[in-house]
């Protein structure tokens, strides 16, 4: 009994000491500052230098940005209002925002590209977020045809007859599958081609004469500004991914002919700068087409941009395929899956997941590359900034236009990049 502690030591505390506040240097903001900004003399110097640079930038730009003029008819008017003080003249955006967004699109039809953009977001949602009802994917499938009609207008039967080609392919596939799998694939490819070549034209012409409904036709050369960037960018992005996957698979194929075609295509496109392809689209093709046929310039550019992005995409996806352990392929074979099933169920889901950062990189690069069309005389936002500056009212204005254009591009690219991070987190299955 005498061995218990209370009897062998002089004093035992039987209550807890009240918690003391940590030393001032070990808590709150001071601790954070000490650990993150001033953890050594080198870091302290760098911190101070960085602060100086930030201060210097803010001091230079801040007053200019804060002293912004939003309402003026010309740069001269802006300067009179500013009266010698430094200040931004965002009145040019106020005056020309509709041109930067829509180009020369007729102003009474601005609702059409706007609606097309809203529908784009709506139709992207089920593709991007899997927790939405799967039925919405039908909306996404219909979107290209709806958007075409909204943007270009004309007879409504043209996009309808184009869409019916895919329906024909699907129907042929379903019926032929009852006979033979390989036959079904052929039927699915040949039926739409047959439809487009021989039946779509009379179908379109017939219905157009019987029921001439549709929005007013807007010509491609009315397109400009962000409208053109988005049309080229979105089409290029959505077409280059499937094309890129096919090219990547083709490059890995054992069939010599398929493989060499894919390799030659990829290496050729990657060996040529995009600007060269754009010049080819704009200049060279004209000479080889029969005179009088004006093959739409925007369409030519979209094709070139898509092919360009597809070649890069193929290499990104090939990287993903190469990163898969050999065992995955063998496991798919062992399960008795055929080539397409193995790709669809085992290989591609993993390869694409690995490739997400690279794919997104290509997407963002493609979207920004659309500004290169300025060199072939298409008035994208950069081209329009030039044209706006050529107006005597706004001659001499630079930063305001570029800040506006840059901000919009940043918005899109940042959005894409945030989504890709979300996707990576969601698909993360390993334990690293």
């Amino acid at each position, binding site marked *: 009994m005498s061995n218990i502690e209370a009897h062998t030591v002089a004093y035992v505390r039987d209550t807890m000491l009240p918690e003391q506040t940590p030393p001032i240097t070990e808590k709150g903001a001071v601790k954070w500052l000490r650990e993150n900004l001033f953890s050594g003399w080198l870091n302290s110097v760098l911190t101070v230098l960085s602060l100086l640079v930030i201060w210097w930038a803010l001091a230079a730009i801040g007053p200019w940005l804060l002293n912004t003029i939003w309402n003026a008819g010309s740069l001269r008017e802006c300067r009179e209002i500013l009266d010698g003080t430094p200040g931004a003249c965002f009145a040019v955006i106020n005056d020309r925002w509709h041109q930067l967004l829509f180009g020369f699109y007729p102003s009474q039809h601005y609702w059409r590209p706007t609606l097309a953009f809203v529908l784009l977001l709506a139709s992207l949602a089920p593709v991007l977020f899997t927790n939405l009802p799967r039925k919405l994917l039908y909306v996404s499938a219909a979107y290209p045809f709806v958007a075409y009609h909204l943007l270009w207008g004309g007879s409504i039967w043209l996009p309808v007859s184009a869409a019916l080609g895919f329906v024909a392919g699907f129907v042929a596939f379903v019926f032929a599958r009852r006979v033979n799998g390989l036959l079904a694939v052929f039927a699915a490819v040949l039926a739409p081609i047959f439809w487009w070549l021989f039946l779509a034209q009379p179908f379109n012409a017939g219905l157009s004469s019987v029921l001439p409904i549709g929005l007013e036709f807007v010509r491609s050369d009315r397109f400009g500004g962000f409208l053109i960037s988005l049309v080229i960018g979105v089409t290029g992005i959505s077409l280059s991914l499937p094309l890129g996957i096919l090219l990547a698979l083709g490059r890995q194929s054992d069939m010599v002919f398929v493989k060499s075609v894919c390799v030659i295509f990829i290496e050729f496109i990657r060996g040529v700068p995009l600007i060269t392809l754009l010049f080819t689209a704009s200049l060279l093709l*004209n000479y*080889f087409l029969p*005179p009088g046929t004006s093959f739409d310039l925007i369409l030519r550019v979209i094709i070139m941009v898509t092919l360009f992005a597809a070649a890069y995409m193929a290499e990104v996806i090939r990287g993903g395929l190469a990163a898969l352990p050999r065992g995955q392929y063998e496991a798919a074979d062992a399960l008795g899956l055929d080539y397409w099933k193995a790709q669809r169920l085992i290989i591609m889901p993993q390869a694409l997941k690995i490739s997400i950062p690279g794919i997104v990189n290509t997407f963002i690069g493609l979207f920004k590359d659309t500004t290169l069309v300025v060199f*072939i005389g298409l008035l994208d936002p950069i081209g329009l900034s030039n044209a706006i500056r050529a107006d005597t009212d706004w001659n*001499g204005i*630079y930063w305001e236009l570029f800040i506006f254009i840059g901000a919009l591009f940043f918005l899109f690219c940042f959005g894409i990049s945030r989504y890709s991070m979300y996707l990576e987190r969601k698909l993360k299955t390993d334990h690293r």
Partner: protein
Amino acid sequence: MKKSIFIGAFAATSLVAGVAQAQQTLEAILDRGELNCGVSTGLAGFSAPDANGVWQGFDVAKCRAVAAAILDDPMAVNFVPTTGQTRFSALASGEVDMLARNTTWTFTRDIDLRLTFVGTNYYDGQGFMVPREIGVSSGMELDGATVCIQTGTTTELNLADFFRANGMEYEPVPIETNAEAQQQYLAGACDVYTTDVSGLAATRASFGEPDDHVILPEVISKEPLGPVVRDGDKNWEGIVRWTLFALMAAEELGVTSANVEELAQGTDSPEINRLLGSEGDFGDMLGLDSDWAVRAIAASGNYGEIFAANIGEQTPIGLARGLNAQWTQGGLIYAPPFR
């Protein structure tokens, strides 16, 4: 060998295209109901879209006059923005019917590229702009200067010629666009900015303090700018050429957009009568009707009115007539007789 075959095929294709297009530009425009006119993607005073997307400017007015003469509607023009690289192939391939785009008339363009310059609607020349504070008053004092110069243009070659001929040295600061040049020049990256005088005037007008900069008196090159059409369609070439001359002659004869309708009823001057179609059948010879010139002049005025409205001294660009005055006023604007 392969290359030459390719070039041969290329030339043959363009030749076939050219022949097929010959003699039918006018019909094609009448069928289409609008004129395809190649303009620059934006050059202050010469061509630029306004806030409503309507193209305005000195070159643009020329297209509108041609459209008015043919189609009786100055707005029936489809403006195709072209860059320095795409302009000639756009014309050669038939994408545009005519170019009205600050294009210098040179030997190789006229002969080698198989184009036809129908005349000169603006006599430009290369000049220098310097800040007033460096105190230079002549191009001869520019020895050792740093010069902002657009790469790949004739201005680059002219500059080298000028400095070599005068035994002076310079340091080029290569830049890509006019906009970049303005920024570089204002930031002091170069002492001198050189380009065409009209461009210098437009640039200077855009500065916050235009009076702090002077355009030196030396003009070191000839830059006759004018509308261009393809070779091979004499009728179309004649329409564009004589529309241009009609605008020039109208100024000389005192025909303006205000009085053209009235004078078209008939006057005492046979020359005016022939121009405006109350005498003779000049319109028929062009394949147009007799009022073609009346409509061209009514579209945006005679040559002097177009000049004054777009680049003249009352505009921010503020160009004097100079070489572009009528020959009777000591300039070079000289329309052959309507006879």
